[in-house]
Each structure stands twice: as structure tokens, then as C-alpha cells.
């Protein structure tokens, strides 16, 4: 009975439907693969170039992609000439420092904005909204002067951490998340005599974990790739982050495409690994901001 029912079904699919679907799907795979080639090609090319030996030409007709004389020499040369280990260490310190503190400060600030009534709440909210539209470059000139004349942290890592400890977008996203937490939950905590801080930490934060992840991921990508402000602040090579160091490398290795390629690979690899491991969270986090 089972077989008798299944067989005609497959035959119908096989003769009438499958070929059409098959051709249509094949067409879409061709389109998707073409787009994939355009998106991925620069990475593939840089990757292979970074392993090219001196006998592998960078320019040739027809072009040669895969090295015939593969070597690690380009990486070693970059590593010898520049404190790449320090670049990594600095990038990690800055990125993680900012991610942790920015997420913490944002979830602190957003809590009363979402769940309390107090004098000046709307004013503060609209003030934040207004600063959100202001281009970040605008603040760079006064911030530069502050860094040099007031905080005296020019060319030190603090200079690229402090300005990012609060982000308006992070606060908005957390405020949105807190608004979704039912008031009953908070009132239950208040009934038990818990302080607002306890309620925030023990009751509310665990509920909004997905939003904390969103804020952390947005901040992570932003900070890891941050260049404009760090390039203004960090001048000694030992103090540079990866992005600033990469530009220094580009200057120092002017005509050495293999060395520059190795530098690009070293800069991009950590975030691509991170992305591959946490793909869903990354996409949800970075596009999740839209709904906020």
C-alpha cells in the first residue's frame, strides 16, 4: 500500500515537475555563484597573494592566482618589521574594553529611560536623539583638542576607549528591549523589597540577553574596524591598533604587494573566524538594530 501510493507520486514529480524546478534552481545557483565570486574574490586574491614567493608574479597575462612557490616569508617579513603582536593586543584590549563597558553603561542608562518616571526624562531622551544625527567627524576636532590639552592621553590606548564608552544607538536599543519587559515582573521584585539596582541586575538583564548580544556585536564590529579616530590618536607603532597598523604597513611596504597582502589577511582573519562561528548572532545583531 505504501509503495503503491508513493510510486505514482514520484513518477509524476520525476517526469513533469522536477526538470523545470531543476533548471530554475540551476539558474539561481549560477546567479548566486556569480555574486559570490564578486564578493569573495578580493579576499581569495589577497589570501593567495600573501603566500606568493618571489618567483610568483603579482602581474602576469594571463593572471596567476595560486602561488607555485608558496612561502610564509611575507608574513615573517611583516612580523619582523612591525610589532604585529602589539597591534593584535591593542585591538583586543580596545575592542573588548569598549564592548563590555559600552554595553554595561548603555543598559544602565536605558533602564530608567524605559521604566522609570523622573524629572527631565523626555529632555534627556530628545537630547540623545538629536546627537544621534550629528556626524561623528564633527566631534573629532574638539575631541582632539581635549585629548591633547585636557586628558593628555594622545598616543595612548585610553584615547580610543573613553570616547566610545557610551553610544546613543546602544542606549536606544537597550531602551527598546527594556520596554518589552512586563512591568509586573519589576513590581514583583519591588514587592519583595529589592533595590532598583537588584531588579535591574537580577530580573531585567537576564530577560534582555538577546538585545545585550545585539549591542555587543554592533559595538564589536564597529570597534574592531574603527579607523578615523584611532588614526588621529595613535602614532607610536607600539600603540597602534590593527587598522592603524595596517595603514602604517601599507606606507612602509609601499611596493611590496605580497607584504601588504599578508597584512590585510592578518587584519581580516580574526573577524572572519569570529563571524563564521557566530554567524546567526552577527546577522541578527547587525540587522536587528533596524527594528530598534
Amino acid at each position, binding site marked *: 500500500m505504501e509503495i503503491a501510493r508513493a510510486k505514482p507520486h514520484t513518477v509524476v514529480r520525476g517526469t513533469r515537475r522536477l526538470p523545470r524546478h531543476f533548471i530554475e534552481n540551476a539558474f539561481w545557483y549560477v546567479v548566486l555563484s556569480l555574486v559570490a565570486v564578486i564578493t569573495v574574490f578580493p579576499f581569495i586574491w589577497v589570501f593567495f597573494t600573501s603566500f606568493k614567493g618571489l618567483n610568483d608574479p603579482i602581474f602576469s597575462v594571463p593572471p596567476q592566482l595560486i602561488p607555485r612557490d608558496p612561502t610564509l616569508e611575507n608574513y615573517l617579513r611583516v612580523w619582523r618589521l612591525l610589532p604585529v603582536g602589539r597591534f593584535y593586543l591593542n585591538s583586543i584590549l580596545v575592542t573588548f574594553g569598549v564592548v563590555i563597558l559600552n554595553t554595561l553603561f548603555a543598559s544602565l542608562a536605558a533602564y530608567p529611560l524605559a521604566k522609570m518616571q523622573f524629572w527631565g526624562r523626555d529632555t534627556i531622551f530628545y537630547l540623545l536623539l538629536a546627537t544621534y*544625527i550629528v556626524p561623528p567627524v564633527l566631534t573629532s576636532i574638539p575631541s582632539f583638542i*581635549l585629548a591633547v590639552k585636557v586628558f593628555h592621553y594622545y598616543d595612548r590606548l585610553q584615547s580610543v576607549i573613553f570616547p566610545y564608552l557610551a553610544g546613543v544607538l546602544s542606549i536606544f536599543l537597550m531602551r527598546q528591549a527594556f520596554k518589552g519587559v512586563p512591568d509586573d515582573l519589576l513590581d514583583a521584585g519591588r514587592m519583595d523589597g529589592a533595590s532598583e539596582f537588584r531588579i535591574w541586575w537580577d530580573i531585567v538583564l537576564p530577560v534582555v540577553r538577546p538585545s545585550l548580544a545585539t549591542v555587543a556585536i554592533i559595538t564589536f564590529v564597529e570597534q574592531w574596524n574603527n579607523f578615523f579616530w584611532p588614526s588621529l590618536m595613535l602614532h607610536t607603532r607600539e600603540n597602534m591598533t590593527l587598522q592603524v597598523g595596517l595603514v602604517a604597513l601599507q606606507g612602509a611596504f609601499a611596493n611590496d604587494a605580497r607584504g601588504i597582502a599578508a597584512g590585510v589577511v592578518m587584519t581580516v582573519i580574526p573577524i572572519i573566524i569570529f563571524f563564521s562561528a557566530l554567524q546567526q548572532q552577527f546577522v541578527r545583531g547587525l540587522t536587528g538594530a533596524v527594528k530598534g
Partner: protein
Amino acid sequence: MAKKSSITPYLFLAPAMIVIAVFFLYPIVAVFYYSFTDYNIVTPPQWIGLKNYQVLMRDAIFWQALSHSLVYLLVTPVLIFLSTILAIVVNRRLPGINAFRALFFIPVISGSIAVGIAWRLMLDTNGIINGLLISLGVLAEPFQWLAEPALTLPIAMLLTIWLGVGYYMMIFLAGLQNISEELYDAALIDGCNGWQKHWHVSIPGLRPQITFVAVISSLAALQVFNEIFTLTGGLGGILNSGVTLVFYLWRQAFRLNHAGMASAIAVVLLVITLIFSITNIRFLERGTQAD
């Protein structure tokens, strides 16, 4: 709700508000003040009234930078067009589609500095682009892509588009997945074919995302810097062909130490940004109401 007179809410707000006051609010006020001064960062600012603005109005490079920044806004319609189509394509239920979505997202997270430097290598006279085009018979000899003033902006814009398409695609994809299947079924019954159904259902359904993308991608376009910086090696291109408002601001402030002049450019940028975001939102909202 908590007691109104409590100090608690202010304690929660304090850390973030101190940072925002020092690094956002104060600089916004200060930049207006500096724009009325002659200031080289080393010696104290001298009040000179509107002189910076008057000099700017007669500065050919400023007008060039302004027009470049406005031309750069063309990336917005291209980005919306390409990423909408791509979203519709990756919204199909195909085996392995998630892998493609992830691949298209890689440029978004890689950072414009590393990617810009990679592009610069590829577009070099001795780069792979020339190698490919010569093998294909398109070019007879290597072309200096980055030394051609007419191409500086288009190449930078192409890079911006290449960097952004995957991000906006994901936004549109999320929007598409919120459109009810029933609307598509209704469109099919009304006799729409494949692409017509997208024109009549998907595009109107994506209105909120289109507004959002139009606003954020044009704000990003007005503030472009990294692409120009990497592709021109920090020089702004031959004959200032790649100098945008933000690049000019950066050069005036941090290369030439004209902090006062740069602040005036910053104020102009702020005014343009405000006008632009407001009209953008108004215009696109009116479109929604007309539907």
C-alpha cells in the same frame, strides 16, 4: 513606577551621560565656537567672526569637495536597487542558501580599511584587474586606474557599494520575511507573474526598510572617508579628484592644522546632514501616505 523624587534614575544615567556630555555634547558646541576663530591647535584660538566661512565660500576646493559629496549620494539609489534584488533572490528556498547569505555578508564585517587596501592592490597598474582585462582582450596594456582623476570617485563609490550591499540585503531580507504569504497568493490569483508580484507586493511591503536604508546609506555617503583615504593613499586623489567634505575637513584639521577652518567645514556638513535627513524622511513618508 518608582518614586518621582528618587535619585536612583540619575545614578543609572550618570556613567553614560558623563561620557556623552564630554565626547558628544561639548564637542558639538565647541565646534561652532572654533568655526568663528583662527585656530592652529597650538596657540589659543583668535575670534575672527565669519572670516572662515567667507574664505570657504571663495575656496574652489571646498566647492569641489561639496559637489563630490553630493555626487557620492548616488550610491544610495544603487545600493537600494541592488540589495533589494539580491534580497529577493536569497529569499528563495534553495538548499544551501544560508551559505550564500553568509558569503554576501563577509564584506560588511571585514572593515573598509583592509578591503580598501586590498582593492588598491588589485587596481594597481601591476594588479590583477589589469591582468584579467588584458587576458580577456578588453585592454591592450595596463591602465592606471587610480591615477585617472575622472575615475577616483566612481571607484570609491563602487567600493562603498561593494562593502554595503550585503548589509542592506539582510535588512531587506528581514523585511521580505515579514510580508504575509497571502499577499503573494492574492497577486498570483490576480494574474501577476514572478517579477510583477515583487513589483506589486514586495516593493510596497519593503517601504519601511527602503526609508531606513535611504536615510542611513545617504548619511554614510555624506561622511565617506575610509574608502577615499585607502584608495588615494591618504592624498585625496590627483587634482583633489577624490576630496569629499569629510576628507577636506580631515586635511584642513589634521594635516594643515587649520582647526578653525575645519570647524567651519564641520558646521556646513552638519547643516547639509540635517537638511538631508529631514527632507529624506519627509519625502519618503509622503510616498507611503500616497499608497
